[in-house]
């Protein structure tokens, strides 16, 4: 019921449409760079940097609107005056936004299968989607935590976008800290696994590359949940 509330209030026209447009432009805009047929999977990873930037903007705007925006509009007060558990409210908003965002990006990304003449069972497509999912989870939990702390929609949007945009710029291609670096690492490992294409990537590096954002996300989610449930006051 809260999911429907969130969908109808925060994903009304033209929000979903703008997200779809953003996904299409970020994912499909990139020309095919590797024409070598054996390198076709590399096309999947070549444009991932642009996807990351669009994701930052999307997550920053959507999650700030959903959380911080609902504080400033008074909708959170309304929701919390009903017999609803705070954890349910947080979970509904978080999961709805996360799932819709990822579904849109994954669907558009899957158009790469025919565009790059890949088999639908091509593992590297799903490796790329997994990379995007990890990034979406990471960005979403961070945006949620920041929005709950800031409670102002505009400041929240700016903070999230500047923070992650800055982080990606500063960390460059660092293999653990930046999205592009992590993706290259994970992609390289699975390419090595599935088709023996070098460079060889150590399993431990891949585990760190995946565990780092996921564990940070879980930590932030738990912190947000505890804060929202037990500490947060709404004036």
């Amino acid at each position, binding site marked *: *019921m809260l999911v*429907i*509330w969130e969908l*109808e*209030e925060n994903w*009304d026209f033209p929000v979903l449409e703008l997200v779809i447009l953003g996904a299409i432009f970020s994912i499909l805009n990139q020309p095919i760079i590797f024409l070598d047929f054996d390198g076709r999977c590399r096309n999947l990873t070549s444009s991932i940097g642009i996807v990351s930037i669009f994701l930052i903007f999307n997550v920053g705007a959507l999650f700030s609107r959903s959380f911080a925006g*609902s504080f400033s*509009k*008074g*909708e959170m*007060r*309304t929701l*919390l*005056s*009903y*017999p*609803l*558990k705070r954890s349910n409210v947080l979970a509904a908003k978080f999961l709805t936004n996360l799932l819709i965002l990822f579904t849109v990006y994954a669907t558009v990304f899957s158009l790469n299968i025919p565009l790059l003449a890949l088999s639908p069972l091509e593992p590297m497509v799903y490796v790329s989607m997994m990379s995007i999912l990890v990034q979406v989870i990471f960005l979403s939990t961070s945006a949620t935590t920041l929005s709950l702390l800031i409670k102002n929609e505009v400041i929240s949007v700016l903070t999230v976008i500047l923070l992650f945009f800055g982080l990606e710029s500063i960390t460059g291609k660092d293999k653990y800290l930046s999205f592009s670096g992590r993706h290259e690492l994970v992609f390289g490992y699975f390419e090595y696994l599935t088709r023996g294409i070098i460079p060889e990537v150590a399993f431990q590096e891949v585990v760190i590359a995946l565990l780092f954002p996921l564990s940070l996300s879980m930590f932030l989610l738990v912190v947000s949940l505890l804060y929202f449930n037990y500490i947060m*006051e*709404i*004036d």
Partner: protein
Amino acid sequence: MAGFIVSTTKLTKSFGSVLALDDLNLHIPKGISGFIGPNGAGKTTTINILIGLLKPDHGEASIFGLDSWRESYEIRKRIGVLDEKCGYPKNFTGMKFLKHVARIYNITQSEKRARMILNDIGLSEAGNKPIKTYSAGMTQRLGLAQALISDPELAILDEPTANIDPSGRILLLDKIKELHRDRGTNFLISTHILPELEKICDWISIIRKGKLVDQGYVKELAMKYSANVYRIEVSNPQLLAEKIKKTNVVELVWIEDARIYCKVKNLEEFHEEIPRIIASLKLKLRSFQYMHSSLEEIYKEVAHGE
């Protein structure tokens, strides 16, 4: 305390260096209760604590004997809230919003209930329009509708008549009385429009600078803070007034619209002396009435007098 549905004990709350509530001991019985005080007195802070949005620094607050912070979820099943600062989802129609609210409260036949409450509150025609198109008055009515849709045991209303036209206010106050009479709904109403409150409230709590100034049944408070004014109608008011002035039982005597008003110094002596004077002057007595203080007068004396 027994018999009270809302209780606070030494309730204290600060926002930085601002002490919003200072050892507040509020008690609200069943019925229709008013919660009044000047701006910044701490009414909204108290309501926010009661509905579980704020945590008190010290002391306790409870509704139905349940702690308002720790057991907030249980409390919210039994109350409805109209809050000044609440916002409603702008893209929903009034009908859709109330249906959602009804479902939150697990009301079966949510659509029927929503339609009924929209009708009661005078919004049946606007029910299919988006909330963003509503005027301030319509939004206020919608707020009332969502507060009352679940048939709560206690409805907490913060400025319920704000932005509503006079006929709407009459309708609303009648609705409140009807709900209390027919369904036993209790109300805690915070408002600045005291004459309206006076018409429907049984109990008043007055707060000032975060402290409780006084609370009690309206009639008792009226007696307590009464200006001790009597109104006398006789055949010759000027003659009587002259005689009364010479006595020692009144502070002040004046005539208005051919009626004598006396601010009494000593009630017992006044009750003995005045009938005797009237009898001696052989005047015809038409009425002899005690003038109860209005809520405004009580409020002026209590909230601003200290």
